């Protein structure tokens, strides 16, 4: 019952100094909304990065020859890729599956020679799992599954080879037994905005790549793509179960693309550091305001103590002020943060002016149009922390008030 009375005093004090309360709440809400918005933006960019990276460089889950991740030798292949692919389909029927063969060799044009990472793909399946087909430069055409002489080259690679669409190039590669030379015709150019890709990569059909390695029916990786990335652990387990009797490794994207995963983890950590810095700055502001408010009311607390209010109860009055202020400011910050996220979530935020049309993050091409995503665990965590920091900021002023001696306190004007 006394608690109700103490809360009433706390609430009235906040209302009495409405302007100060609103300014303090606005500072907390401003910091919190900025955190929520930037966290959602970060989540959106990670999702885009994961989506692009996973789809173009690996899969949500990949099946590779045993030991390939540790030593990516291009002759270390998954045999019977078609059977493996079908087996994967059987255990995860909703997933999209595409096989790829990676060939590293030299590409020669009549005028120049360059190293190349040629990826053999299934053109139809690939266009359902990745964005390669959207990266074609004008005048290019997507690969025809039946065209085993067709190749798509990175725009910069084509530049260094001084070739255009329609020109011929020769791939020289170490096959299974001997050096293989294969003639290709350039069907198109690819531009992702990533130098490593545009200057070094090419795409051809799966069969052409298998032929270059003299390893028919094999694949460097069978990639599995799911709609919901949260399903990855279950999908990985199901695929691993189906592959138990084969000499393969079944990896989630986090292990297949460790650099990208570590980049995201590191970036998240730096985001959290920023989060704590903002939280501490805001807390200092709250502490200052609450302490000032306590100093102004020393006489009032002295009266309360004189009337028989216990020191702990005076402590609680100020703590309640922090609790109530925290609820109000957190609610306000949450509303502003979500409202600020919404337009970008729907229409995207275009960072092209700052970063160019395409940017490279951790070796992955990323679109400059980023769609912030509602990261609810992060948002709830931010709200809890903002509320907690507000309450914690009141502890010292509360302790100060609780230690007052009534006679001295009542002498203060």
């Amino acid at each position: 019952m006394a608690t109700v009375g103490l809360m009433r005093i706390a609430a009235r004090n906040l209302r009495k100094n409405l302007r100060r309360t609103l300014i303090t709440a606005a500072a907390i809400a401003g910091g919190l909304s900025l955190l929520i918005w930037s966290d959602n933006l970060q989540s959106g960019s990670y999702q885009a990065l994961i989506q692009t990276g996973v789809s173009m460089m690996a899969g949500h889950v990949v099946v590779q020859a045993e030991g390939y991740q540790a030593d990516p030798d291009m002759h270390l292949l998954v045999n019977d890729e078609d059977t493996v692919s079908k087996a994967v389909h059987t255990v995860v029927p909703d997933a999209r599956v595409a096989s790829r063969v990676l060939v590293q060799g030299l590409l020669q044009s009549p005028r120049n020679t360059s190293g190349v990472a040629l990826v053999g793909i299934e053109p139809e399946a690939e266009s359902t799992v990745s964005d390669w087909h959207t990266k074609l430069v004008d005048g290019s055409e997507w690969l025809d599954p039946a065209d085993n002489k067709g190749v798509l080259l990175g725009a910069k690679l084509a530049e260094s080879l001084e070739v255009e669409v329609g020109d011929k190039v020769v791939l020289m590669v170490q096959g299974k037994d001997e050096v293989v030379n294969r003639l290709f015709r350039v069907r198109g150019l690819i531009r992702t905005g990533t130098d490593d890709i545009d200057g070094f990569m090419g795409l051809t059909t799966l069969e052409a790549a298998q032929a270059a390695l003299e390893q028919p029916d094999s694949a460097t990786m069978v990639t599995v793509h799911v709609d919901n990335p949260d399903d990855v652990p279950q999908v990985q387990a199901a695929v691993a179960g189906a592959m138990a009797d084969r000499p393969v490794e079944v990896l989630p994207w986090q292990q297949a693309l460790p650099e990208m995963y570590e980049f995201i983890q590191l970036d998240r950590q730096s985001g959290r550091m920023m989060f704590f810095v903002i939280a501490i700055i805001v807390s200092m502001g709250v502490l200052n305001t609450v302490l000032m408010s306590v100093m102004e009311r020393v006489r009032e607390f002295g009266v309360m103590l004189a009337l028989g209010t216990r020191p702990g109860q005076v402590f609680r009055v100020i703590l309640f002020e922090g609790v109530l202020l925290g609820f109000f400011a957190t609610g306000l910050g949450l509303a502003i943060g979500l409202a600020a996220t919404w337009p970008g979530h729907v229409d995207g935020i275009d960072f092209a002016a700052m970063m160019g049309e395409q940017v490279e993050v951790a070796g992955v091409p990323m679109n400059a149009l980023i769609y912030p995503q509602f990261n609810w665990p992060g948002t709830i965590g931010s709200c809890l922390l903002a509320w907690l920091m507000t309450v914690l900021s009141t502890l010292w002023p509360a302790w100060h008030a609780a230690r007052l001696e009534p006679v001295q306190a009542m002498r203060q004007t």
Partner: protein
Amino acid sequence: MAEPIVQVRNLVRTYQQGQIEVQALRGVDLDIQAGEFTALMGPSGSGKTTLLNQIGALDTPTSGSVRIDGQELVGMNKVARSSLRLNRIGFVFQAYNLIPVLTAFENAEFVLMMRGVSEAERKERVMRTLAAVGLSGMEHRLPGELSGGQQQRVAVARAIVGEPALVLADEPTANLDSKTGNDLLDLMRKLNEDQGVTFVFATHDPKVMDAAKRVVTLVDGNIAKDLIK
């Protein structure tokens, strides 16, 4: 004779003011019986307020003994002293000292609320007490919306609503005009006579001294005269 409600023995209170030691009380002995209407008078610095603070468990003595309703205050911890003040003593201060964010009703209700009295009982007792001090109809006003006299009446209501063993009033009429001061004094005398509330005042006000049934005069921290009318 019943045990005194206030029993002070050889009470000494010394303050340190910079390098100087000030002896505010120099071995005071005083008994106050239940139902008394006692004024502590004396010039400024004579120790009236210091003595009142000792009796009210608001301060700790340098030496000596203070017993309220049989309970020894010396050696009592902070929480026990708070509890004693809450349950046994009412206070009226010179500057009213109402809680500014609470209405007249809520200020008077505060002590009962801290004691954990039920809402229905609180309401009944507060309304009755506010009526007794002449503040019916002003329950919902904040202290800032009341005159000085009305604020002091709220303070009196707050002091007596919990039916304490003792009400201590430090210069209760000092900030009031003559008529308002007289009205308040009449009110407290009536409460003393009708309800048997024990009042102890620290005062300079001749009207309070006239109204008091006992006047204790303090000079330089000692009781110089104890006059029972």
